[in-house]
């Protein structure tokens, strides 16, 4: 049994434990919470553990989706969907775009793998075990989930209301535009205007 199997075994057990504990504590919503929390933390753990940097990046998808799920549970579905749209559909895709093209470098990542992950996973498992063994009384259990109400209208009004955040909103927009233009400028291929077109088509005869 190698360390990888051990890790994924522990991860699976932790998932079952998290969902089971959630269900015992708060029924269906608890189960959903346990699942989302497990996705979030499990994705993060895999991200640290995995040697392959691309797998690490893919595991972030679990984290992002888990966070989105937590937002849903907290009754904020606009935020949840924004989270998925921006983080999974946009940022993660770009991240993968970059990471896929980078050469693998396993040595750098092994340190984090041995040290950080073990400590983190151990601490997490210990915490959960302690919590369960100490009884779930200490947990904060919401008796009812908040009602989901899309705050889209509220957010929109807040952004466009001169008395609230319209200045900040517009400033952020300008900042992002400037950042975008700057990024394009930096990433652009530099063109040198010297060296005339002599051997361009001539090739190697």
């Amino acid at each position: 049994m190698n360390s990888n199997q051990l890790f994924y075994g522990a991860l699976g057990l932790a998932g079952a434990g998290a969902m089971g504990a959630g269900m015992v504590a708060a029924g269906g919503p608890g189960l959903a919470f346990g699942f989302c929390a497990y996705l979030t933390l499990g994705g993060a753990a895999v991200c640290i553990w995995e040697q392959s940097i691309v797998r690490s990046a893919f595991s972030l998808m679990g984290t992002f989706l888990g966070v989105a799920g937590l937002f849903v549970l907290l009754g904020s579905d606009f935020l949840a969907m924004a989270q998925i749209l921006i983080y999974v559909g946009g940022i993660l895709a770009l991240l993968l775009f970059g990471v896929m093209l980078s050469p693998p470098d396993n040595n750098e990542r092994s340190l984090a793998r041995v040290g950080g992950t073990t400590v983190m996973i151990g601490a997490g498992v210990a915490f959960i075990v302690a919590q369960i063994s100490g009884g779930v009384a200490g947990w904060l259990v919401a008796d009812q989930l908040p009602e989901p109400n899309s705050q889209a209208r509220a957010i929109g009004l807040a952004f466009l209301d001169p008395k609230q955040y319209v200045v900040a909103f517009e400033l952020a927009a300008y900042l992002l535009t400037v950042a975008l233009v700057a990024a394009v400028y930096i990433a652009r291929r530099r063109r040198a205007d010297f060296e005339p077109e002599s051997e361009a088509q001539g090739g190697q005869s």
Partner: protein
Amino acid sequence: MLALMQNGGGALAQTPNEGTNFLHELLLWLPLPEWIPGWALILGAVGAGVGILVGLVSLIALWSVWMERKVSGHMQCRNGPMYAGGWHGWAQTIADGIKLFQKEDMIPIGADRALFVLSPAIVLASIFGALAALPLSYDWYFARMDLGIFTILAIGSTTTIGVIMAGWASNSKWSLYGAMREAAQVVAYEIPLGIALMVPLITLGTFSLLDASALQSGFFGMGWAIFQNPLCLPAFIIFWIAALAETKRAPFDLPEAESELVAGFLTEFSGIRWSFFFMEEYAAMFLMSAVGAVFFFGGFESPATYALRSAGMEGTIVFSLVCFVTLVLKAFTGVFLMMWLRWTLPRVRIDQVMTMGYKYLTPLALICVLGAAIWEAILHVVLN
């Protein structure tokens, strides 16, 4: 799991006072023993919803594949499938499906097995999740969502991750090219897609697909957004181009560009895994067409629903059915349009795709939004 979570979110989002999930209602209505807890009912509803979704996606794919073959066949002076099942080869896709199930499950030696196996699941789960947000009729829906369109776009965008995963896990250079193209293309076209959809959203003033449809019921069921605001037509064209790019359909089928990249991210896939990607593609086509139908072409509304409503049949099962059929017909008109374009146009080049997305579609979509906003302002503020 993803679909479950999504649906769980949706089901949990039910509030007792308004518009609960009809599956949940059904389960509540059934004479079930008392000791079954409420959450089990919710889970049951979720399970049934997932079952219906899987069936729906399979049906859409089955029908669409057959339709694609017939459409392409007739456009190319062929008949397409004619034998399987008897009448015009209607059972061809079923036969193909059975064949695909029986095929050897191949994973290349150098492939990243875990990701290779996971990628079709992610792709399929994302389309399930997105389709779950699509109402099938005024009272047939999996989850009543105020943010329906936002949800569809968000969850639909996770397909990209599955495709990138497939491309990377295959450990083939052609697949990697496909994955890179997919990443670049989808990120580029999500922007004009979303912005173009803002035009009907401004016109109708809602994110909800149900509300959007209901708001287009005027003029004998023809008060469609495209007739309400002149900017909707250019916005629809932009939306449609972006939707083609999002669903990887020709002329934007660069991720799988079979004459350039062999089959792109699909190169190493075979059998049932490959068919999952195929199902996703057709389901996504249906979904995008349905979204276009709901936000530009009246959704469930048509003279037929108007007539039924005038006859006081609103709320009956017949009315629901007519709404459903209306939407499906509109959506499949869109699917047909996609097929028509695919079998007519050559493929564009990646730099042209990027140029079109960033340089033309996005600014044009922004102008459309601005115009739509001005139009609405004139209509409602100035003229009022």
